[in-house]
């Protein structure tokens, strides 16, 4: 991969909340996040609810301020920008939200929604004729009719609303779009339409995606690389096929195994069913965060937090997994099943 477009180093974010059972009031939502996104690339971000995916997205969108760490976008740190420079950075990174009903203001019509960003970025399309033409073009790009510009959001179906949300994100011609569960609120048949649209747009515009989802099938379909999050840390990254087919971190393996497969051959697979639930992020376990649910956990896991281990994948890309006892091969996975079952 060439020079990354977006690079995140050691990002931390702590929220102060009401007291937990052990009297802790600091919720470490992000704890040293490192990731990179290349130009035109799709990075898949998977993890269970409460793992910090959405906080990461909001921090990258500068809706939250990080406590530590840096974000570098084409060599500049957006958190150091002010005024006009900040505004022009805002233009480069945009977001599509999960809920196509809540993310559109019901009192505006479709045209106003799509052109809303230009009310702030006035110099982008200065004349109203340009703006109208661009709205028509954007609606066309996302598969809506130009005449839809006068409709209000209630008149659209869920899938069409999500198209509208994508059009709004495209209005500022961004380089990176953060997609926060863009299809999980949609029906299966509509979900496929939106995934196709996102794919087409990427081909056409060369935009990078950070695709956040809990649906592993979808992530496997869209992402070039995958990052797996658990309790505020990225515990494994690598090329999509590598991570899905040869997971090195036990959590990744369990996650892959737990997600139901559309397999009708009738052969019942061995599944790793994790016992217990996600520990509270208020009181994360010592050492390795996953040790409370891990079947490979040993004494060292409770004492020392594992360092990220970098290995070279067969295709030349880098693999990274934070585990003292990473899984070696697929065989290791079946062996694990017996212990976990």
């Amino acid at each position: 991969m060439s020079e990354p477009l977006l690079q995140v180093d050691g990002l931390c974010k702590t929220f102060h909340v009401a007291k937990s059972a052990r009297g802790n009031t600091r919720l470490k939502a992000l704890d040293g996040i490192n990731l990179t996104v290349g130009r035109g690339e799709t990075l898949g971000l998977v993890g269970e609810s409460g793992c910090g995916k959405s906080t990461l997205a909001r921090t990258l969108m500068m809706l939250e301020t990080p406590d530590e760490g840096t974000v570098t976008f084409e060599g500049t740190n957006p958190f150091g920008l002010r005024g006009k420079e900040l505004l022009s950075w805002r233009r480069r990174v945009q977001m599509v939200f999960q809920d196509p009903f809540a993310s559109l203001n019901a009192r505006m019509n479709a045209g106003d929604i799509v052109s809303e960003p230009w009310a702030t970025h006035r110099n982008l399309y200065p004349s109203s004729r340009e703006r109208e033409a661009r709205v028509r073009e954007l609606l066309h790009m996302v598969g809506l009719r130009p005449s839809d510009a006068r409709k209000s959001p209630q008149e659209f179906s869920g899938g069409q609303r999500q198209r509208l949300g994508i059009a709004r994100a495209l209005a500022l011609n961004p380089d990176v779009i953060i997609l926060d569960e863009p299809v999980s609120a949609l029906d299966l048949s509509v979900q496929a339409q939106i995934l196709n649209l996102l794919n087409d747009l990427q081909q056409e515009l060369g935009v990078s995606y950070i695709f956040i989802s809990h649906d592993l099938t979808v992530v496997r379909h869209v992402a070039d690389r995958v990052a797996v999050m658990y309790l505020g840390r990225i515990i494994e990254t690598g090329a999509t096929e590598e991570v899905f087919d040869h997971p090195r971190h036990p959590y990744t393996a369990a996650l892959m195994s737990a997600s139901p497969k559309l397999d009708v051959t009738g052969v019942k697979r061995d599944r790793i069913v994790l016992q217990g639930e996600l520990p509270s992020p208020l009181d994360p376990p010592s050492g390795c965060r996953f040790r409370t649910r891990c079947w490979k956990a040993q004494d060292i896991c409770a004492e020392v937090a594992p360092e990220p281990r970098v290995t070279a994948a067969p295709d030349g890309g880098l693999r990274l997994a934070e585990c003292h006892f990473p899984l070696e091969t697929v065989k290791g996975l079946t062996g694990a099943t017996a212990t976990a079952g």
Partner: protein
Amino acid sequence: MTSSLTEPAAQDQLPGTENRPSGKGNGSQDGNPNLFRLLLKDRFATVSAVLLVLIGLTAVIGPALMGDLATKQNLLFANKAPFSLAHGWEYVLGSDSLGRSMLARLVVASRTTFSVAVPAVAVALAVGSLWGVWAGYHRGWRENVSMRIADVIMSFPSLLLAVVVLYVFSPSAGNIVLILALTRIPIYLRTARAESAELQSRTFVDAARTFGARPNAIIGRHVIPVVLPTLLTLATLEFCYVMLAESSLSFLGIGIQPPDVSWGLMVSQGRQYLQTAWWLSIFPGVAIVVTTIAANVLAAWLRIATDPAQRWRLALPRKRLIARIPVKEAKP
């Protein structure tokens, strides 16, 4: 754009949009239907609107038509009962203890009443809502300080404040308006803050922030249009309160000064004659109640009519309003 992007366009449009009920002409298509036509569909709202127009016209041109009838005393006709044309049309609503025409006094009082109540409500609404929306949007210390100020104003006896201020300064209409507005600001402040605090965490507000929109722009574009209908409904209820508050000030002699007359003043003056001449306080009281209810009904209607998500309720036959359960099941 090339064909790869336009292809899903053609597909997606097939059934969903075309089968949608297309409404009557342009009206419901552009999301801004003809409000007047919608109004005529709702009988209660129509009646309220007509009443308000009539009362408004009375307040504007009525006093000129009445001439000096409202102040002309005629002791021969003192305390005449209403609903009798025996003493001429001007005594159709009876007369007071000085023999002045109730009808004329009500008409003249309407102007005074409105010239105090309308500005008082408007000032309180404007200041309270803007302040509340601002405090709720920013949260943090701005919210805390604002709410404490509101608490102080609320807990301070407003009548005492009015008495002090109006004794120190002269009891002019302007001062009454200011005092009434000041004591009612917290009502709007609290409502606006609560709604705004909820709205600022909504996704479409987050979306606007990601464009880099400034807080004031977001407040103007996304918060106020949503909060305003609620506040307007509140304001119509406040209208009643302000008229009555003005009457108690008048009763204490620091409100509207005779020979000027307001509905509230008429109610309080007539109270001592309630046993013998009920019409002295009942008629102005009815005027206050009718005005308030009409304004309230119209505001409630307006709140629904300006909300695109609820507007369809007004378009349906009235009988079925009860069975307004959404067709769709919960999303999976």
